[in-house]
C-alpha cells in the first residue's frame, strides 16, 4: 500500500512543479510577452489571421466577446454535425459504418463543442475515422481553446485590463499552448505504443485457434489532445482503459499530468496577471487539499475492496472490477478523482464499478466544479466562489465587499448567483423528470440506490461539461440524447455569458486604494472562508442526492448487501 500511495504523491509532486513554470508561460502568452516559441509561431499566426480575415485585433466589449464565442461555436458544431451525419458517404471509413441516428449525432456534436465529450456510443462500432479525426479531433482543440480564451478574458476583467480579442485569444490558445504540446506528446505516446494508422481493424488467429478482431486507428494524435484539452472523449468505447489509448504506466503518468496541468496552472496565471502570486498559491493550496482528501478517500476504499466479494475470497483484496492490472487501484483512483475534478471525463477504469466512496467523490467533484475545474471555466468558477466569499465576509464584518480594490455590488452578486444556480437547475430538474419514469426513460442498469446515482451522474456530467459516466446506463435513446443536450448547452453557455458580463462590470469600476479597512483576500483566513463557502454551497445544494445515491449504497454494502 505504501508503494501505491508513494506513486500518487510523486505524481502530485510533479504537478506542483509544473504549475509555476507553465502558469507563467500562459501568462506570458496572453500578456503579449516574448516566449521561446515566438520565432516559429508568429509567422503561422500571421498566416492564420490573414486567411481567417482577422484584421482588427482590438479589445472587445463583453457583448462582442460573447457573440464571437457563440457564433464560432455554433459554426463549428453544425459543421461537425454534418460530418458525422454523412460519414457513410465520406472516405476513411474502413468498417463501412453507416451514419448514426440524428439525435445521437446531435448529442455528440453538442457534447464535443461544449468541451464535454459525453459519449452515448462506442467509437469502434459507431464512428468512422473521418468522423473522429476530421470532426471530433477538431472540436477537441477548438472547445478547449474557447474555454481558455474565456478564462483569460475573465481574469483580464477581474484584474482591471481590457477583455481582449476572442479571435486572437482563441488562435493563440491553439498555436502556443494546445498544438505544440500535442505534437510533442503525441510522438511520445506513439513511441509508448499508441497506434496511429488509417488501416482498418486487423483480424488475427489466436494461439488457441479462435478469431480476434483488433480495432485500430489514428489514435495517438487524438489521445493527447483528449487529455490536454480536458475533452475526454475516447477514440475507443472504453476510453483510456483501452490498451491502445493508454498502454502502460508511463503513458498513464503523462495522460494524468496532461489533464491536470492547464486548470491547475491557470490559477498561477491569474496570480501573474494580478501581480499577487501569494493569493494564487493560497487558492491553489485550498483546491489541492480538497483534491488530496478526495483521492485518499477514493483510493483507500478501492484498496479495501468490496466486502461482499471479499467474503467469497480468502481475505481482503482490492476492488479490481473495471480496472486494468497495469494501473491497479491506486492509479485508477487517482485518475477517477482527477478526471471528474478537471472535467476531463476520460476514464482509465470504470466508474460504475467504483466503491460508493468513489462515486461520492466523483459526483462531489462535478457538483462543486472547482477541484481544478473545466478547461478555463474551472478557474473562472473558482473566482466566482471567491467573490461570493467576499460578499459573505463583507456582510459578516460590516465592510463594503471589495475584490482587488473594486466594489462587489448587486450586478456582481446577481451574475455570480446565475453561475452558481444554473448548475443545480441543469442537473436536478431533468433528473427528476427522468426518475419519474424509470421504466420508460431512465435506462438504469444497476438496481437499488446505485441506479439513482447513474441518472444523477449523467446529468451532472453533462451540466459540468465533464463527460464521464456510469456507463452501464442505457443512454443512447432519444430522451437521453436530447435531455442531456439541454444540460450540456445550459451548463456551458449560460455561465460563459455571465462570466464575461461579470468581468466587464469589474473592469469598469473605480479602484479604491487599499486601506486598513480593506478586507484582504490573500490571507489563509480568507482562503479558509472561501473553502467553507464552496463546501457549504456545493454540498448543501446536492446533499439529498448524495445521501440517496452513494451514501445509501455504502450503508447497504456495509450491512452485507
Amino acid at each position, binding site marked *: 500500500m505504501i508503494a501505491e500511495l508513494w*506513486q500518487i504523491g510523486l505524481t502530485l509532486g510533479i504537478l506542483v512543479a509544473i504549475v509555476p513554470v507553465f502558469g507563467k508561460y500562459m501568462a506570458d502568452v496572453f500578456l503579449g510577452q516574448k516566449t521561446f516559441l515566438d520565432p516559429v509561431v508568429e509567422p503561422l499566426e500571421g498566416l492564420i489571421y490573414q486567411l*481567417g*480575415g482577422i484584421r482588427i485585433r482590438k479589445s472587445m466589449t463583453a457583448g462582442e466577446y460573447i*457573440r*464571437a464565442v457563440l*457564433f464560432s461555436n455554433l*459554426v463549428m458544431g453544425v*459543421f461537425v454535425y454534418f460530418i458525422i451525419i454523412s460519414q457513410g458517404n465520406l472516405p476513411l471509413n474502413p*468498417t463501412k459504418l453507416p451514419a448514426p441516428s440524428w439525435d445521437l449525432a446531435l448529442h455528440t456534436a453538442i457534447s464535443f463543442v461544449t468541451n464535454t465529450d459525453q459519449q452515448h456510443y462506442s467509437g*469502434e462500432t459507431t464512428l468512422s475515422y473521418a468522423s473522429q*479525426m476530421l470532426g471530433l479531433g477538431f472540436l477537441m482543440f477548438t472547445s478547449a481553446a474557447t474555454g481558455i480564451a474565456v478564462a483569460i478574458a475573465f481574469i483580464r476583467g477581474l484584474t482591471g485590463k481590457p477583455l481582449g480579442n476572442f479571435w486572437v485569444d*482563441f*488562435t493563440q490558445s491553439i498555436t502556443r499552448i494546445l*498544438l505544440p504540446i500535442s*505534437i510533442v506528446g503525441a*510522438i511520445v505516446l*506513439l513511441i509508448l*505504443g499508441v*497506434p*496511429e*494508422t488509417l488501416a482498418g*481493424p*486487423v483480424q*488475427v*488467429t*489466436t*494461439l*488457441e485457434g*479462435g*478469431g*480476434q*478482431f483488433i*480495432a*485500430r486507428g489514428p489514435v*495517438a*494524435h487524438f489521445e493527447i*489532445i483528449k487529455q490536454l484539452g480536458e475533452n475526454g472523449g475516447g477514440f475507443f468505447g472504453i476510453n483510456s482503459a483501452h*490498451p491502445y489509448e493508454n498502454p*502502460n*504506466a*508511463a503513458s498513464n*503518468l503523462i495522460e494524468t499530468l496532461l489533464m491536470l496541468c492547464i486548470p491547475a496552472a491557470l490559477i498561477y496565471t491569474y496570480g501573474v496577471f494580478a501581480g499577487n502570486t501569494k493569493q494564487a498559491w493560497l487558492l491553489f493550496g485550498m483546491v489541492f487539499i480538497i483534491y488530496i482528501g478526495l483521492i485518499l478517500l477514493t483510493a483507500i476504499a478501492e484498496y479495501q475492496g*468490496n466486502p461482499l*466479494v471479499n467474503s*467469497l*475470497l480468502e481475505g481482503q483484496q482490492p476492488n*479490481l*472490477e473495471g480496472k*486494468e*492490472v497495469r*494501473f491497479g487501484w491506486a492509479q485508477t483512483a487517482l485518475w477517477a478523482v482527477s478526471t471528474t475534478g478537471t472535467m476531463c471525463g476520460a476514464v482509465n*477504469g470504470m466508474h*460504475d*464499478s467504483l466503491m460508493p466512496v468513489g462515486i461520492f467523490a466523483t459526483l462531489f467533484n462535478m457538483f462543486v466544479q472547482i477541484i481544478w475545474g473545466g478547461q478555463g471555466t474551472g478557474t473562472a468558477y473558482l473566482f466566482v466562489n471567491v467573490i461570493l466569499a467576499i460578499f459573505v465576509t463583507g456582510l459578516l464584518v460590516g465592510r463594503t465587499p471589495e475584490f482587488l480594490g473594486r466594489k462587489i455590488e448587486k450586478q456582481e452578486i446577481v451574475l455570480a448567483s446565475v453561475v452558481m444556480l444554473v448548475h443545480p437547475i441543469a442537473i436536478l430538474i431533468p433528473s427528476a423528470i427522468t426518475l419519474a419514469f424509470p421504466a420508460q426513460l431512465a435506462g438504469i*442498469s*444497476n*438496481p*437499488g440506490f446505485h441506479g439513482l446515482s447513474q441518472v444523477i451522474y449523467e446529468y451532472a456530467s453533462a451540466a459540468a461539461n465533464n463527460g464521464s459516466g*456510469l456507463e452501464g446506463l442505457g443512454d443512447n435513446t432519444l430522451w437521453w440524447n436530447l435531455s442531456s443536450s439541454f444540460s450540456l448547452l445550459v451548463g456551458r453557455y449560460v455561465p460563459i455569458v455571465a462570466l464575461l458580463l461579470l468581468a466587464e462590470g469589474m473592469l469598469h469600476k473605480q479602484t479604491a486604494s487599499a486601506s486598513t479597512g480593506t478586507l484582504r483576500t490573500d490571507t489563509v483566513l480568507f482562503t479558509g472562508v472561501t473553502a467553507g463557502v464552496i463546501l457549504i454551497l456545493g454540498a448543501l445544494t446536492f446533499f439529498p442526492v448524495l445521501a440517496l445515491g452513494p451514501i445509501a*449504497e455504502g450503508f447497504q454494502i456495509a450491512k452485507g448487501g
Partner: protein
Amino acid sequence: MRELIKGIRLALVMWVLTAVIYPLLLLICGQVAFPFQANGSLLTNRQGALVGSALIGQNFAGNSYFWSRPSAINYSQDENAKTGVSGASNLAASNPQLRQRIAAEIQRLQQANIKPTADLVYASGSGLDPHISPTAARHQIERVAKARGLDTNQVEIMVVKNTDGRFLGIFGEPGVNVLKLNLALDNL
C-alpha cells in the same frame, strides 16, 4: 453577420491545421519512424502468421496456457465483433449479479486448482487487459508446467521474462503479459 463570416473563415483555417495537417504529421511520423507501434504492436508466431497484439489480451482456456482475466466482451473474439470492440461489465459494487458472477468464477478457478486472486475474479476495464498480476501467474505455473511436461523452474523464468515492471520502478503495477508469455512457451 461580419462576425459570423469571421467565425466560419477562422474555423475552416483551424480545421485544416488541427484536423488535417496535425494528424497527417503524426501519421507520417508513425508510419515512417515507428511502424511497429503505429500499426498496433502486432505479434507473429514462428510461421509468420499474425497471432495478436503485444498490448491486447486474449482468452485462454486450455491447461497448457496461462489464463487471462475475465472479460465482459470475450476479448473481442466473438463473430459479431467485426469492428473490434472494448467494454466492461459496469456492474455496481452493490449489484447482486457481480457477486454471482464472481462466485462462479471462483469455482472455475478452484476446479483448475488456481488460487483466486482479485485480478482473476474481477473483470477488467477494457475487456482487453493483456496482463495478470505476478501472483496470479505464479499460481498457474505448476498447472502449465505439468501440461507441457516442462520443469516449473523453466516456466517460472519465462514468467519473469514476460513481466512488465513498474515505470521507473515507481508508477503503475507490475503485470505479466499473458499472450507474450504463452507465445514464448509455444516457441520453446
